């Protein structure tokens, strides 16, 4: 399958102020680096980038001022609300060289243990895999319908697509059908606790106490005289 083509332009201005100007104009600052070649500051239109991110493959064919480059969308920075794209990192890839990339793990089906009141827990959401850029799977789909209450599925049990391998330890649990936790009745002690305990440095506490005692004695002495 051909990769998505993305037209990008070189940008001259770098830094916060220049990037803000770009964003106001509807363009997003980006950078291309990797394979011991030149680091190129780029800019891309917001619409083009959004359509590229909708495509499931993370590999894009960049057109940098007429020069084609295959690149991986390595990182996308969003604003704190998670709406606006602030910056994109592209890294050069060779289509005949393997790369390491994180791929999401997606469950399929309803575990058998869920009927018995079990709760499905996914402890690993992404897995680092090594493969050729053309073989990057969109997701690793796992059929979990056979999992009973208390069963778990490990990394070694995942079926990876051909040409894809992982160096992640096989004993790591990916899915788990856990027994639901019973809500513990509150202990009487907990109920009584209205205010938290104060943290006092030990040494200081004693010194303060001595000071207070000395002050009190002074006062008493003053009253007598």
């Amino acid at each position, binding site marked *: 399958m051909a990769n998505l083509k993305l037209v990008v332009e070189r940008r001259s201005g770098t830094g916060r102020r220049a990037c803000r100007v770009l964003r106001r104009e509807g363009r997003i600052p980006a950078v291309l680096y990797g394979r011991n070649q030149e680091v190129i500051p780029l800019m891309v239109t917001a619409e083009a980038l959004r359509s590229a991110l909708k495509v499931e493959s993370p590999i894009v064919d960049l057109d940098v001022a007429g020069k084609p480059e295959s690149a991986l969308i390595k990182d996308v920075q969003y*604003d*704190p*609300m*998670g709406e606006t794209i602030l910056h994109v990192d592209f890294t050069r890839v060779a289509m005949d060289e393997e790369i390491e990339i994180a791929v*999401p793990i997606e469950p399929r089906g309803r575990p058998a243990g*869920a009927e018995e*009141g079990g*709760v*499905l*827990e*996914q402890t690993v959401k992404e897995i680092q895999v090594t493969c050729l850029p053309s073989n990057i799977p969109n997701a690793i789909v796992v059929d979990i319908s056979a999992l009973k209450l208390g069963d778990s599925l490990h990394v070694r049990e995942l079926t990876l697509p051909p040409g894809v391998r992982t160096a992640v330890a096989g004993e790591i649990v990916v899915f788990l059908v856990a027994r*639901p936790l019973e*809500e513990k009745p*509150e202990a009487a002690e*907990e*109920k009584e*606790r209205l*205010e*938290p*305990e*104060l*943290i006092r440095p030990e040494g200081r506490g004693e010194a303060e106490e001595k000071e207070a005692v000395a002050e009190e004695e002074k006062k008493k002495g003053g009253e007598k005289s």
Partner: protein
Amino acid sequence: MALMPKRVKFRKCHRGRVRGLAHRGNRVVFGDYGLQALEAGWVSAREIEAGRVAANHFLAREGKVWIRVFPSKPVSKKPAETRMGGGKGEPEEWVAVVRPGTVLVELGGIAEDLAKQTLNRVAHKLSVKTRFVGGG
């Protein structure tokens, strides 16, 4: 029992100002769906507990709920019909400081429509405007 710290260094603290956006705790990390704050404010331990109870009751042991905020700020109050002066009031409640973007609650292991219904019920217990967000 509402959430509160076990040990604190100081019983009372200044009110402070809630400025800016949430630069941390603003993504769905543990579950699949979340409830994101759209405005700044204080969410009390009582609200958090009410939201948790509402979610657990509606889900009836299905799925998993994560509370992503903790009320670590004491709010003091003077008793009713008291003249001004006499120092700062006694701690009344504990609140979590929330900035726009903070993910307050997360849900996992359930379908999206059920998650939306559950988080809608949680949102009604909170004093800040929120929205439903998906994971990823």
